[in-house]
């Protein structure tokens, strides 16, 4: 209950703010004068063509939706031969870009952008997305796959993704957004679920249970044993068996025994506790088992 009371802190802070501060002032966009997209296209053929077929192309105010009233911009070009004022996304600071986009997109997943780590580290919507020149089939990303976008900053994750044991991200069957929501500032590590386990269980539903015989670290966090970004050990394990299991199971007899090079297939004293699936050769139901005779998860 103490923790729950802690929940009141940000809620109370926010409500206090509502009382103290003025209501947000509705910012009314300057109404654009009449213009034709073809006027824009004369100089900006590639960007205009690039957004064809996208929801942006069907906005009521077309280019003016983001770039403001182009009248003076065009007038100056025609009359003086020099560029007149226009709202340029390229010249905006990240925060200004975000405000422009969120004017329409502040809903659904994007509604949790504010306060998230990506916002706080100065990223903007156009760090990842492009309105005019996108390469992905979904979400108008600047790269063909979302992982390529994420890896520009998360380079260590790219290296992990090249490991032998991996989720099918590099094959394109999954992507970073399968597990993370880069817009959501409310969740740790931007996981798109209520917990790490709930995210994993959304695909690995067979491991949800509850089981007759549970395994405590499994119930608490899949990350106790797995590295979902990639691993050099089977099943994305964070370490190789039996050493992974021996981080906790130092029991009498076989669990606490040393398994070294002597016990491998090339060694002089081969044991089935160190080769192939090691501990899992017998304790297969390590995620939980439902057999009455399975307290050691072997049935």
């Amino acid at each position: 209950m103490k923790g729950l009371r802690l929940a009141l802190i940000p809620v109370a802070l926010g409500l206090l703010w509502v009382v103290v501060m003025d209501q947000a002032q509705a910012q009314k966009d300057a109404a654009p004068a009449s213009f034709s997209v073809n006027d824009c296209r004369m100089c900006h053929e590639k960007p205009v063509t690039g957004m064809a077929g996208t929801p942006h192309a069907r906005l009521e105010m077309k280019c003016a939706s983001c770039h403001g009233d182009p009248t003076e911009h065009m007038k100056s070009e025609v009359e003086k031969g020099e560029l007149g004022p226009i709202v340029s996304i390229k010249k905006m600071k990240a925060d200004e870009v975000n405000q422009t986009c969120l004017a329409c997109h502040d809903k659904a997943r994007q509604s949790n952008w504010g306060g998230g780590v990506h916002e706080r580290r100065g990223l903007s919507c156009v760090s990842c997305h492009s309105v005019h020149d996108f390469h992905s089939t979904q979400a108008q990303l600047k790269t063909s796959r979302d992982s390529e976008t994420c890896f520009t900053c998360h380079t260590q994750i790219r290296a992990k993704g090249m490991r032998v044991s991996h989720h099918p991200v590099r094959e394109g069957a999954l992507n970073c957004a399968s597990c993370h929501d880069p817009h959501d500032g409310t969740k740790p590590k931007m996981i798109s679920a209520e917990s790490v386990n709930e995210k994993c269980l959304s695909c690995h539903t067979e491991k949800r249970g509850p089981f007759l015989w549970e395994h405590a670290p499994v119930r608490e966090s899949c990350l106790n044993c797995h590295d979902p970004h990639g691993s050099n050990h089977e099943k994305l394990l964070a370490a190789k068996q039996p050493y992974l299991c021996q981080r906790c199971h130092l029991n009498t007899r076989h669990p606490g025994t040393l398994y070294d090079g002597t016990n491998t297939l090339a060694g002089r004293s081969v044991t089935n506790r160190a080769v192939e699936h090691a501990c899992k050769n017998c304790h297969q139901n390590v995620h939980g088992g439902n057999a009455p005779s399975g307290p050691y998860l072997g049935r």
Partner: protein
Amino acid sequence: MTRTRWLIFFLGLAVSAAAEEPPAKPDSPASPAPAASEMGPAFSLRRIDFGVQGVETDTNSSRFREYRDVPTGIFIPFARFAGDERFRYDVTAENVPQSAARYRVLAELGSIGLRAEVIKIPHRFGNSGVTLLEDTGPGVLSISPTLRQTFQGAIEQQFAANRAGVNYTFLSSLVNPSLSAESPIDLALLRERGQVEVRLTRDKPYDIRLSYFQEHRRGTRAAGTSFGFGNVVESPEPIDYRTRDFGATAEWTRKSLLLRGSFHYNDFANKNPFEQFDNPFRATDSTDPSAYTAPASGSIGGPAFGRESLPPDNKSVTGSVGFLYKFAKRSRLSADATLGQWTQNDAFMPFSTNTAITTPVRATDVSSLPARSLDGKIRTFSFSSLFTTRPADHLTLTARFRRYDLRNDTPRIAFPLGYVRFDAVWEDIPRVSVPYGNTTDAFTASAAYDFGTVSLEGGYRYDKWERTFRETESTGQNVGFVKADLRPSDWIVVRGSFEKGSRDFSGLEIEKSEDASFLNPGPPSNLLAVPSATVCPGGTVCNLRFDQSKKDLDRYGAFVELSPGGKASLTFSYVKGKDRYTESLFGLIRADNEAITAEADYTPHERVNVFAFYTRENISTLQRGRQSAATVSVNPLDDWTSEIKDKVDSIGGGATFGLVKEKVELTLNGNYQRVDGNNHFTSPVGGAPEVARRTTGGITDIPFFDDTNLYTLSAELSYHVTKGLRLGLGGWYEQYKLRDLNSNDITEGVLLTNYVPGSFFLAANDHDFKAHVLYVRASYLW
């Protein structure tokens, strides 16, 4: 406040806000907007990529096609049909009609939006595995009764003549002729997923969506099925899973307020509730106290077949409500609460398959069980709230709180008479099931100030875990962090971050976790459950598991991006993480990781682009154990350490050259990763581990712990025949090599034998390969 009150609070807030006034109409432009036709003619796109491909591999390793198809012959990697003539639609197909395909449909009809996807994901675990087991029915894997009777007879004869003669040499000569006559099997899984989402109120201030998801997983995977210490029979576990999910989400926006809610019903069904597998060495049931070690000099008993539970059917129901409120000073307050319930009540299988076990109960009879099913129930509750504001122009304050409560209401089921070990022998050890649960709280507060060129952020994070049935009542972790971003010019970005924290525990009862599953707990059998005073120096708690023990953590990060002139960019990044289990002498003691990356991208002109990256990772862990016999050793000479060090080099690069402007293009790409892993062991002279190895070469390191090499090189020359037609000629080469602990005697992808001491292994090939692929393809747009 109870959960119900919380929900009432949020629902009340939502209803009162919704009742204030009807949603305002969106502002309409003051002047006539351009007509749709001004964007040009109605958008229409037709594209199809197709080609012919040849593939050559030197082995049948499954690794090459693990998650993908690489077809020989005609292939269609991509097709798309999109337009907005009458309504907007977008249909794409990838890898038609392979087993790793994706089909996607997007359509917008008035206020209705439709998004549908079908995706097939293969997972090939290994090829050409060898087993005596054959699939003879749902979940049933059998071996010829004649063969088993022959093996049993031969073993009984040897046991009668000379017990010590029932050893690996004898057994392998017995089984190898049969193994070599078996037909190989491939182990693979296919996920077939379909999902559809209907958006009922597109472009409205309220958004209602309905969704349906279905997945069918089928195939086999290697499973460790065992009859005891000396008779592991790895089997191809049958997989036939179906998952369905029905969902509904709603969101309503009114100026500064956003309300949202969702509901999901998820159902998992397994067609095979258990796997039944024959014992190669027995055709009839028998039992004796050492049967779990058979076949060996101590026993040749055991069951004729074993049975293992497979994942039971389960269901989950989840509902959530939340709101976001935006107000002055760019302030946002959001809160979401989610309630969930997971249930499972599949029928239990009997204690055992072994008809010879009749005391204290008839083990094959389900009526002997204390319960017929689990009636398992887990309730989850999560609450997350975020408040962020900008009280001054350049100052951002953020606070976040999350609670996740997993309350396991599954009843504890006692087995007062014990259970059956490996279907071989009754164990008179009364046990009771343990429904683990936990509650986590996380609070983060940070302040960021933007000075212009430099922005700084500092903050604090607190994480608390409360666990049931574990050694500690709770652990608390305090972390402070600072981050800095420096942008001295348009082309320089420098980021730095540092975190430092520590974790402590409270309410220690070190035997509690081990004792929890025993009705009559005896002396601890795990070193990590022994009273600390027995094994730890100086009053410390040196034998607490790593997820609860005292810990110091440090995280460093640096990132530099230079992009002078807009044609080139250089990026350097460095991250380091250190976890120190400060008082731990046993289990995991230290875990470090470090990665340094250099990356360059150069585009001298529009027809040339070159990029390359290199990452070096150093990963290291240290753990200590203590070898014990029948009781936990208190002799430090029995200690051993394992220090694992992985050095990982990842290199990638590529180039695109426009050889003839808008006509001919050459694309080159390459990726390479090399892992050098070593496991270094120590153990004092005179201790049990060292003494046991005096005649076998002493304590031996594993220098090829997880050594792997994987590289891919590709090239494509493409020619734009017309604006809509592109032809490409390309190829790629891929090579993979593995040398690791678990399978170090594998030569060129073939295990020397499927029968090793104490185990039948499938030895399905997922190892070394070299592959060449050559293709010609066309991309046609119209």
